[in-house]
């Protein structure tokens, strides 16, 4: 069955917009944030119109309905990522918060009693990340090492944008407490061999966290299959609203980890001088959570599932196979990341000789084409590739070949405008 992108686009009201005085919008910035289908927008409106109340503690019908919406979203997430059960799904405000949750658990573990002690990180311990990470999967680990005296190490990146695995056994050793890496790069599109790295990590007793912000929206992801211990992703990159993310973790880890944020809802009992805590996942959900957003996320999961995640992945692969050669044909354009559509997602970053990304994106913007310019929250990666800044186009289920054509034409236009061709 062919992927009916025209029909899908009708579900996304914003795609009808014109920008910059009459240009149809070509939205090629989905890696930054995705657009939302009517179904997600309606789910949130409907929650506020018909079911709004606080969850868990309200003792009336609306409270029941709100709780069902929230906990129903948790079930939907669990099923979406192949979790063993919904208690392994913790809602956060985004993936950055989820990663920080884990990092703080590893430092707080030193002072959180017997059960947590085995997770504690200290001097002599190592945390391993990679040079292609988003800042959200770098900075929390830097801060962790600062707090605890642990050492930060990282995998390098090859010239064609893959992880350099040549030092795998030297980087991941008995000293390693945790390995954190991107499942799919937001700059290069590279899909990393998470399974392989998880196997090595477990051999030496290290934990593994996958940053799946760019993979969960675009391909089927199964946490059992990946073999990881933690996995994070965020609603707004997968057709869901901002303000809600997910940290999935194995149950026994969540049971051992100390809380991150303290407050209402995450407690079992409270006295003035001490408290006891709820079991996971609620132990990690302090205060009033983004309830309507959870309803929106559930609707997004439903939408993606109904559209078909394999079908979406195949559509994006087609676009990639079309776009990569078309871009490579542009004289003066240097593609960052793998040139072949193999183990590679649809974040396409590039340099244009003599035209700074800011200027490229400005010209594209004038033509109604939305891309991103800069270092895309991956500054170390750019330094490694010898690039000061890049332009990034990124696709999703609603992207068309026409939009790819417009991108190519727009880049050529920018080259002419700045007189480099």
């Amino acid at each position, binding site marked *: 069955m062919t992927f009916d992108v025209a029909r899908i686009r009708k579900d996304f009201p914003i795609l009808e917009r014109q920008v*910059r*005085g009459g240009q149809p919008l070509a939205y090629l910035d989905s890696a930054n944030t995705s657009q939302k289908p009517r179904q997600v927008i309606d789910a949130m409106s409907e929650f506020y119109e018909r079911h709004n109340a606080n969850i868990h503690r309200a003792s009336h019908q609306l409270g029941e309905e709100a709780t069902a919406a929230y906990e129903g979203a948790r079930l939907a997430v669990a099923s979406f990522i192949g979790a063993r059960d919904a208690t392994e799904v913790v809602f956060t405000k985004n993936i950055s918060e989820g990663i920080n949750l884990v990092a703080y658990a590893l430092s707080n573990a030193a002072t959180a009693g017997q059960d947590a002690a085995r997770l504690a990180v200290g001097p002599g311990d190592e945390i391993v990340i990679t040079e292609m990470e988003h800042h959200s999967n770098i900075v929390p680990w830097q801060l962790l090492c600062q707090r605890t005296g642990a050492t930060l190490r990282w995998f390098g990146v090859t010239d064609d944008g893959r992880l350099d695995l040549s030092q795998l056994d030297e980087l991941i050793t008995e000293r390693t407490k945790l390995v954190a890496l991107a499942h799919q790069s937001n700059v290069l599109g590279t899909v990393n061999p998470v399974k392989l790295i998880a196997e090595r990590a477990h051999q030496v007793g290290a934990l593994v966290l996958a940053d799946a912000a760019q993979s969960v929206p675009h391909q089927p992801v199964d946490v059992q299959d990946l073999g990881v211990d933690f996995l994070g992703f965020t609603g707004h990159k997968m057709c869901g609203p901002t303000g809600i993310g997910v940290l999935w973790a194995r149950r026994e880890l969540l049971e051992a980890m100390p809380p991150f944020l303290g407050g209402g809802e995450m407690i079992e009992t409270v006295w003035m001088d001490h408290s006891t805590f709820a079991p996971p996942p609620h132990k990690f959900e302090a205060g009033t959570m983004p309830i309507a957003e959870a309803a929106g996320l559930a609707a997004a999961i439903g939408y993606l599932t109904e559209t078909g995640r394999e079908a979406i992945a195949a559509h994006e692969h087609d676009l990639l196979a079309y776009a990569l050669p078309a871009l490579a044909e542009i004289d003066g354009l240097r593609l960052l990341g793998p040139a072949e559509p193999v183990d590679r997602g649809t974040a396409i970053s590039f340099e244009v000789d003599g035209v*700074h*990304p*800011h*200027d490229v994106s*400005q*010209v594209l913007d*004038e033509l109604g084409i939305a891309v991103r*310019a*800069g*270092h895309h929250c991956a*500054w170390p990666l*750019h330094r490694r590739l010898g690039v*000061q*800044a890049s332009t990034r186009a990124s696709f999703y289920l609603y992207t068309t070949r026409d939009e790819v054509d417009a991108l190519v034409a727009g880049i050529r236009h920018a080259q002419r*405008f*700045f*007189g480099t061709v």
Partner: protein
Amino acid sequence: MTQIESLYQEIILDHYRNPHHKGLREPFDAQVHHVNPLCGDEVTLRVALKDAGGEPAVADVSYDALGCSISQASASVLADMVIGKTVREAMGINGAFLALMQSQGQAEPDEDLLGDAIAFEGVSKYPARIKCALLGWMAWKDATAQALAAVDTDGGDADGKEQS
């Protein structure tokens, strides 16, 4: 494409292709390094002061910059505008340029005061580019403040010392 032409005026593109006063020179009184964290544009800028009838004046502004056409051109225009002026006058021009950038397209800039810098008026309608246009100007302000402070501490000795 007239809106974008108001942003990328010919003067700006000229300065971008042939930046004035580019390069790092000695002597200098202060050096700063400024970065725009959003996009990675950066500038290293040196200021050399001189005495002009009892008040400090800008003898030279030299710089090395990596970035978009707006940030590069703006650094070039800045150097043109402040070299040879007293610090007091140059700070006045700096303030006027900042005001122009923050004007959201509503300003009526003083061409006599701003000279070529008036070409950046279109930037004020593109919030994402304002920091680009200001990068060199803020760096110059910072370097000049440091150079003046050094003069104060050393009692008038302002000769080729690196401040940052």
